[in-house]
């Protein structure tokens, strides 16, 4: 199966030529009960073939339970983007459509080790000492959603106490129900604080700080 046509591949290769350090995509899959897992795995394989800096490890959600638990992967299809360490960056569901942008940006961020956040923001994020989990619910047809995902992933990159998940809402209807997702992007922090819409980085950080108070 070929997911990316030649012109997209050429463009991606040129983006990936800027990569510096190795990035590993840990892809969790399962043979049964996960219709899109195979598509996600193929998608990730094709991405990894476009750069020798992008490694791929395909893991079985059931058989490689230990690894899943270590990375706190609790649903599939799942992709964790790791560099020299685990930055807590996760994609649940295929990062296609608009989320392709946030996915490519996450690879670049981990490889180049630069979040692009303002220096004062970095310092404020680094000073967070409590565990923070950020869930960003998206649809793949939502133009605003990648902005929210990118901010969450940047926060996770800057602080090991923070994990950040892009969640394709259509892929996980039980979560859509549980978290009452009626509009996207919807951000849920530590299952405690939630808000809708893509907000600027400093407002986003205020919600994070509110959640760990």
């Amino acid at each position, binding site marked *: 199966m070929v997911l990316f046509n030649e012109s997209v591949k050429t463009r991606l290769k040129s983006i990936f030529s800027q990569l510096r350090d190795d990035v590993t995509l840990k892809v969790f899959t399962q043979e049964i009960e996960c219709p899109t897992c195979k598509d996600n795995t193929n998608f990730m394989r094709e991405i990894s073939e476009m750069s020798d800096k992008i490694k791929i490890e395909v893991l079985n959600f059931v058989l490689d339970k230990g690894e899943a638990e270590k990375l706190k992967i609790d649903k599939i299809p799942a992709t964790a983007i790791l560099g020299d360490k685990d930055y807590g960056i996760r994609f649940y569901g295929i990062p296609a459509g*608009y989320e392709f942008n946030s996915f490519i940006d996450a690879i670049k961020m981990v490889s180049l080790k630069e979040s692009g956040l303002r220096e004062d923001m970095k310092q404020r994020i680094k000073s967070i000492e409590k565990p923070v989990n950020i869930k960003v619910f998206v*649809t*793949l*047809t*939502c*133009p*605003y*959603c990648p*902005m929210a995902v990118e901010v969450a992933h940047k926060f996770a990159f800057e602080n090991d106490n923070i994990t950040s998940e892009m969640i394709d*809402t*259509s892929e996980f*209807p039980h979560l*859509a129900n549980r978290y*009452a*997702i*009626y*509009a*996207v992007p*919807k951000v849920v922090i530590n299952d405690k604080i939630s808000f*809708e819409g*893509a*907000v*600027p980085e*400093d407002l986003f950080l205020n919600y994070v700080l509110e959640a760990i108070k």
Partner: protein
Amino acid sequence: MNKKIHDLIILGCGPAGITAAIYSARKKIDFIVISKDVGGQTVYSSAVENYTGYQVITGAELALKFKEHLDMFDIDLRMPEIVKNVKKEGNIFVVTTDRDTYYSKSVIVATGRVPRSLGLKEEEKFKGRGLTYCATCDAPLFKDKDVVVVGGGNSALDAVIQLAKYANNIYIVDIAERLKADPIMIEKAFSYPKLKYFSNSKIAEILGEKFVEGVVLENTNEQSKIELKAQGIFVEVGSVPASYFVEGVAKNKDGEIIVDCACRTSVEGLFAAGDVTNVFAKQVIIACGEGAKAAIAASEYLVKLK
């Protein structure tokens, strides 16, 4: 606080703002762009079939191509930032956003249009709780649910077409006697069997405890009311120009900023381009052309200042 005085501030990053930015970058003008998003209304269009050079392209792809062109230049893009106020104090423009205050010698307003609301008092309460203004974003969330689409133009029918992939019953609620949308859109939408059309109708009330559970429809001809059960309401009742934050400039009765053929406004140094203005025809290709004109006019204005 940002004390630097820029030569130019461009507000908005849709077709007009992006084109203005590309022209300004090539002229090496000192400028920043402030916007809440990239692409503006273009990204919500499922297909653009009248942009010269592309037989058919999705609005999202076209916006991405615009952005790629913009990214060739090193542009200071402040995003997402929402402009709260623009006014001229002496010879300097003061632009206040939700995050900062900026100063410049000239401004191009290219903020486009924003969706019109229903004007119901309970609207705020149900926003993001079943009431939505972005069919392309939120349609996948209403799988097997009953939904109401308010409006009768192309964007309403486009919403129906997108919802048909997911929803169960779809109700079109239209204030007019008959649909204004293009026949080809109507044909496409009505190929969905579970579609019902209510003409001469409007939403009188949204029902529900925390989330949308239904609506009260009022037929304005017969003065009658009925209740419909629905979990989603998609509002597609047109748009209004995003111009309310610009102080002291001449606008028409619809709130559009009045411009001349060089995108000049009633305020010297303040230019406007695209759908936020009274320009004839609101089209992507026209907004691009207007953005180019505004940038050239602003550049000439800046040269004369020096």
